[in-house]
């Protein structure tokens, strides 16, 4: 398939954007994708050092889709645009507010979006009861399916399976 933008080179990337409730899928070649601010795996591989450095820190936020710029954290009021510009999140709740965008970013930054280190138990919190955790996860799964967030749903399903 030829690139939708230049109509010259072979398309290697499918870019799906949601604008005004309608879904637009663009098929782009590497150059046009980069021009639109999409980092291609091909480019990252060509220059391991350069690619890695730009993918870290502030540069990485350019990977976030501008279509979702207005998304706002209800707790601190920061928008996804603020995050793109500063490279810093506003508060802990931003991680939930920008969940699906961050998941993708974290995977690119760290090669994973799942914490496997020490599990923190705060003061006054009992050891998390696995039964309660299971109920919470099932509740989150229902909401994810309702919101058609299938990527999140798949992850939740995996975690439920582990607990069960």
């Amino acid at each position, binding site marked *: 398939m030829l690139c939708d933008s230049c109509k010259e080179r072979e398309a290697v990337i499918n870019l799906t954007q949601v604008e005004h409730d309608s879904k637009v899928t663009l098929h782009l070649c590497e150059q046009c994708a980069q021009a639109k601010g999409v980092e291609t795996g091909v480019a990252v591989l060509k220059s*391991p*050092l350069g690619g*890695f*450095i730009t993918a*870290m*820190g502030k540069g*990485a936020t350019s990977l976030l889709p501008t279509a979702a710029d207005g998304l706002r954290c209800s707790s*601190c009021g*920061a928008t996804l645009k603020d995050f793109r510009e*500063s*490279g*810093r*999140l*506003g*508060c*802990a709740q931003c*991680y*939930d507010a920008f969940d699906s965008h*961050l998941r993708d*970013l*974290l995977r690119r*930054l*760290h*090669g*994973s*979006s*799942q*914490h*496997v*280190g*020490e*599990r*923190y138990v*705060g*003061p006054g919190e009992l050891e998390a009861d696995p039964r309660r955790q299971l109920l919470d996860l099932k509740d989150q799964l229902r909401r994810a399916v309702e919101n058609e967030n299938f990527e999140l749903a798949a*992850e939740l399903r995996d975690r439920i399976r582990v607990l069960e």
Partner: protein
Amino acid sequence: MIDLSLLPDGGMSWLDASGPKGSIVLSTRIRLARNLRGYAFSQRARDTDRSAVLTRVEEAAAASDRLAGAVTFRLDQLERSDRQLLHERHLVSKELAGLDREARPRPGAALLVRGPVGVMVNEEDHLRLSGMRSGFALEEAYVDLEAADADLGRLLSFAFHPQFGYLTSCPTNAGTGLRASVLIHLPGLVLTKEIGKVLQGLSQVGLTFRGLYGEGSEVVGNFFQLSNQTTLGKSEEELLDHLGKIVRQVIEYEEQAREVLLRDHEAIIADKIWRAFGTLKYARSISFEETMNLLSGVRLGVGLNLISGLSVYTLNKLLIFTQPAHLAGLEGRSTGDPELPTVRAAYVRRILEAEAG
């Protein structure tokens, strides 16, 4: 001027070169990024939030086993020269000290220190806990730190997410919030021109390098800080093991490079080293950067047993005390004094004469 003698060792026990591989590795430092639940992250927080965060951290520290009696420095109430002093001593970041041009420390910016553990408050994250040890000592540095973290975590509510781990202002630190770095002297690899390959290799195994003062600082005097690049998706132990394995390899390469230099180019290397020593001993005016580069040569000479009667500890001390704020403080000058290079040269001469004769 602030009284650093409040800290039993001036916060610099890591300088004594007593740790493993002390002639190649200056220090090992590990930091953990933590934020308090219920407060916006430092950059978005209001001044009242920042001061509330500081109060809560101070109260928790006072009630904890590991940080009770910690010395507190309020960066937002210190003169620039004092803030620079703490930065030169590797106790606070440039950001916390507000040392960038036009910058001021944020209200509520503070440092708590007790023994090998330090806590920066209201830096990019609410808490940046760090543990520092002399030489190559990842496990020892982590033991101190983990205990302090557990202590504070029982008394404060940290922001934690079952999937993303510890939540941090910048997503590059999320997960474990752990960054371990080893400050290592690699003149052998630089002289044999192997350093480029080594540094490029690091990025392929998920590590990164920085200069003497960490993030954003330049490499001077052949000192490199090697650290983990990612913080999420691996456990604390895995991150430390991995860094440890790679650093051991880099040390081995450095030792090999030194052997090669001594075997194939001894006359050239010896000449470089003695010239560096000679300049340090007899110069009448010297910049900090030149001092660093010359100290690098002398340090190599000590490591190769070409120079004797000079301890690595003395070289480490020179590295710290020839920095502008330290030197100015010692000699009763201001950091902007145009005579500082002359004062520095005299100071270096005095120290070297006292020890090496």
